């Protein structure tokens, strides 16, 4: 068959025209509806953070008050294994010398030796757990929360080795049998072989609620807000008070501040 250069170019042009039809059809067929969106009530932040006012916690709270711990562990179906080695904790308390090692001195005020400091995941700006996770089950959200995707966790526990705050717990056994509180039917449990930790209640932020521990503390010793927003409650407290963070020398940029 004879074919001229002219015919070949025509054919090429027709083919090129054909390539444009798919994007056109797609643009035409696209519905105006978004497929997924956020809850309009959701709390939005650029860098969520927490301020723990230890003085308020000690002065106003009763001795041995565990409101924040109970609220958190109940809402998140956290088991009580009853064995320190296998303990699962999202929020717990420690003494000063364990929270801020190296900063204690033998003659500091009595309170600092004895009174509890609330500790939980610091949602670090430069989180070592995120860096070491081989499956990206632990990842950083754009709002600063260090989030766990339990579906992806393979239980290697690198994150636990990486976290300098001991904020992560491993499920050595099926936790279901050890959930002593009434099961929260709206939140999943975990299974054997995954790591868990505080999530700053991202599931509550998504529907416009503050974290459970913040809500549970009757004395306002836990304050939650956006570090990037100059009018947020945490920024106001940080501007008014001297605060310290846990092990800042490690460069993890913790997002939990303590008024001591």
């Amino acid at each position: 068959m004879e074919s001229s250069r002219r015919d070949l170019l025509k054919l090429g042009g027709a083919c090129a025209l054909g390539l444009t039809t798919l994007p056109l059809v797609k643009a035409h067929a696209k519905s105006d509806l978004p497929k997924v969106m956020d809850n309009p009530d959701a709390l939005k932040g650029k860098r969520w953070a927490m301020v723990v006012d230890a003085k308020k916690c000690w002065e106003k709270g009763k001795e041995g008050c565990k409101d924040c711990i109970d609220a958190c562990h109940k809402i998140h179906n956290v088991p009580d294994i009853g064995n320190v080695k296998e303990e699962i904790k999202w929020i717990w308390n420690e003494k000063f010398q364990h929270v801020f090692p190296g900063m204690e001195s033998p003659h500091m005020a009595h309170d600092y030796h004895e009174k509890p400091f609330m500790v939980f995941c610091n949602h670090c700006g430069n989180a070592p757990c995120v860096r070491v996770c081989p499956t990206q089950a632990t990842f950083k959200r754009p709002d600063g929360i260090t989030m766990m995707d339990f579906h992806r966790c393979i239980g290697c526990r690198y994150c636990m080795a990486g976290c300098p705050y001991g904020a992560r717990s491993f499920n050595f056994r099926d936790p279901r049998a050890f959930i002593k509180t009434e099961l929260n039917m709206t939140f999943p449990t975990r299974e054997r072989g995954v790591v868990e930790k505080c999530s700053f209640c991202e599931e509550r932020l998504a529907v416009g609620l503050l974290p459970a521990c913040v809500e549970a503390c009757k004395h306002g010793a836990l304050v939650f807000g956006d570090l990037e927003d100059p009018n947020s409650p945490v920024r106001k407290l940080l501007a008014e008070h001297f605060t310290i963070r846990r092990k800042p020398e490690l460069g993890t940029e913790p997002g939990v501040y303590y008024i001591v």
Partner: protein
Amino acid sequence: MKIYNGKPIIIGLIIFVGVALFPVFYNGGKASPPPEIKLDTPVIQQMTEKQCVLPKGEMRTGHMQVLNEWRTEVVRNGHRVYVAADGKQYNMSLQNECMKCHSNKSQFCDACHVYAGLQLGAVPYCWTCHIEPKEPKETK
């Protein structure tokens, strides 16, 4: 043609074929009944328009992809609301949305998964973490 050690070989072959075909003859002619999916939960009965997030056919063949997409959107991208083709909005949650209507897991999820030979509670392993709704005893 001569088969060395023919006698035991032939006997062995007959036994092997018999054992291999045993399930075929044992279940011969009896088709196991196809799974029956029940949709008569209280919530679904009260719905005026009985419509899931996607048309029935798409849900039947693609619910696992839908669940995977929802998981990715919620856990990793932080978007929690799904907008269906008719503009209706759903909370993308297996435990809080899917099971609100399909509260009869044993007659809905399990009906097919067990029929297809997926081990109960193992594959798909949704329910090792997600909490299944409590079902009244008699329906189980």
